[in-house]
């Protein structure tokens, strides 16, 4: 049998019909999927990308300024600082000049222990090396509160060795 005969026979005999209930079943599954709309990214894509980059840089700058100026609290941070104070159980009469309680200066060893217990990966803990001196850790809100309590305690009773400044950012 020639190659052409094989090709012809495959074309004639090979096609199969999908089961009649296949398409309705697929569409039932499709209907169960959550509704979605196309994003308007294509038109605004380049602008949005630049805006996202600019926002990220601004946020990074803000975070660094918060770290650097632990002694002065900006008005924007005051509400979150108040919330954090409440979470830590601080007294209402605490002096307003105190550094934001989401930033703690603790012994490097204590910080490593507390963050490791909180599930921060060892790779990130390398930032606790003495030459870095400061670290920002974004943690789930509930875990962040517990970590902040421990860091506050460690700050009150500082251990020996080099110190690091740890900022905890609670995230949703």
């Amino acid at each position, binding site marked *: *049998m020639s*190659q052409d005969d094989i090709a012809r026979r*495959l074309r004639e*005999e090979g*096609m*199969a019909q999908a089961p009649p209930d296949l*398409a309705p079943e697929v569409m039932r599954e*499709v*209907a169960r999927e959550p509704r979605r*709309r196309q994003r308007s990214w294509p038109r605004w894509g380049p602008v949005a990308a630049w805006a996202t980059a600019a926002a990220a840089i601004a946020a990074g700058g803000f975070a660094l300024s918060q770290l650097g100026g632990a002694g002065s609290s900006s008005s924007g941070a005051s509400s979150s600082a108040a919330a954090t104070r409440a979470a830590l159980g601080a007294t209402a009469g605490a002096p307003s000049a105190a550094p934001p309680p989401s930033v703690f200066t603790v012994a490097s060893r204590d910080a490593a222990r507390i963050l490791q217990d909180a599930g921060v990966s060892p790779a990130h803990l390398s930032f606790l090396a003495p030459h870095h001196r400061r670290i920002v850790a974004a943690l789930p809100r509930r875990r962040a509160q517990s970590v902040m309590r421990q860091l506050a305690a460690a700050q009150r009773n500082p251990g020996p060795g080099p110190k690091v400044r740890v900022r905890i950012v609670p995230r949703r």
Partner: protein
Amino acid sequence: MTSAITLPRAGRARPWAYDLPVHDIADSALAARAARGDTAAFEQLVIRHQDRLYTLALRVTGSDADARDCVQEGLIAAWRGMPRFRGDAQFSTWVHRIVLRKAYDAIDQRRRRPEPVEEVAAVAPAGDPSARSDLLRALAGLELDFRVVAVACDILGMSMEEAGELLELPAGTVKSRLHRARARLAEAIGSEAAT
């Protein structure tokens, strides 16, 4: 496939294609609507391609049940992926590739978990011509690399370039594999006839 439903208007923009009966609308226009969440447009694509997709999965896996699962999962995956479908490739090639990957996965799973003998014997469904065609039996026994090329080019009628795009192979490789697949099929049928 030949239903003459006119798609409902959506939004302010109304491309010319929306005034045509569904069977006249190109895949790309339906895919663009489906990407915006239009299930009616996606349903038309499903109806349009289901036989070819089912044939691809059936001839590659050799199992009716697997073929059905592959097409169903593939089409649902395609629906989920519609917003990412940019139209660089044809919708047809894109969805065939998704179903083919599912078919490869099904074959892998079957290799890892051998089926009982009675299930293997019942693989060919009653209405499937492969139960009585010597050629399709020979095709089912062909190595996967050759089988899939024969299915794409000879059964589904794809060009070498289309099959190459589907299988992510150069057209030259598709051509040589197709030649060898046909030769092996001819040989298998000849030996079967001789016995």
